[in-house]
């Protein structure tokens, strides 16, 4: 299997296997060389301002986060778990009601433990963005975690109650 095939499989697993990405109808239009381009189709259920019909900022947030994650995978030779550490989004203008929103993300720097990503969301032209984003990801974020790890009781000490649950 070539690298390109592998990264396309990861992208499709991230769109189809992630319930929120599937609920929003994310598709990957392009992926490879540390870049990912994703699309969210416009529909009335994801509007944020009913007076204007503009898609909610939160949908753009999720699309930018998801596209950024795929750009990180597209910059690595082998798959590893990743987690968003922080995400900064500037909203330049409202998306045009009725149009699909696209996001193009580029992982421009990868260190042993951190990935740095820039992304832009747009409806017609990447040069006229709806929003721009800057994100950092932790690599190998699930180290030591098994599938279903989040279903077990929290190991977080309950500071306020003083109980010890470890």
């Amino acid at each position, binding site marked *: 299997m070539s690298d390109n095939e592998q990264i396309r499989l990861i992208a499709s697993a991230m769109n189809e296997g992630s*319930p929120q990405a599937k609920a929003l109808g994310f598709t990957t239009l392009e992926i490879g060389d540390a870049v990912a381009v994703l699309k969210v189709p416009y529909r009335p259920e994801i509007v944020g301002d*009913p007076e204007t019909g503009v898609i*909610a900022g939160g949908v753009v947030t999720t699309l930018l986060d998801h596209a950024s994650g795929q750009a990180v995978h597209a910059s690595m030779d082998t798959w590893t778990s990743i987690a968003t550490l922080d995400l900064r989004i500037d909203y330049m203008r409202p998306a045009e009601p009725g149009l699909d929103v696209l996001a193009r993300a580029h992982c421009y720097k990868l260190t042993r433990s951190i990935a740095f990503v820039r992304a832009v969301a747009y409806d017609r032209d990447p040069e006229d963005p709806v929003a721009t984003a800057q994100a950092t990801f932790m690599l190998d974020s699930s180290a030591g975690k098994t599938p279903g790890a989040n*279903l077990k009781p929290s190991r977080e000490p309950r500071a306020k109650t003083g109980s010890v649950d470890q």
Partner: protein
Amino acid sequence: MSEPDTRLVSMLDSIPYARFLGIRAELAGDEMTAVLPFAQHIVGNPMLPAIHGGVLGAFMEMTALAQLSVAAPMTRQPRTIDVSIEYLRSGRPLTTYARASIKKLGRRIANVHVEAWQETRSAPIATMRGLFLVAPSED
């Protein structure tokens, strides 16, 4: 219902995307808590499973907008200028809560900080700082 209560309910009811995520809010005096019940469709990572980071960002942005609607009547919905989100812990398959603190509500700009948590208020899973363009009604 009090006036802020009415504004809050009508705001959340009117936003399709807030209904899509299942966001509710509870008001005690002027203190509002937004509630995001766990549902399968908000999961991002099905392996752990964990709530999608984008959903947590969207939830905190909606919390900020809801808190602004409680704080003052607006001639139109505030517009988000920018948000900065920090992810502290994985969002487990549990109910998530959020509270917003308006640091400043000016004539044009509002500065809002939001914190989201699950079982333990003192162990937040994510925080957000946001700037909003506002249009408070002139009384």
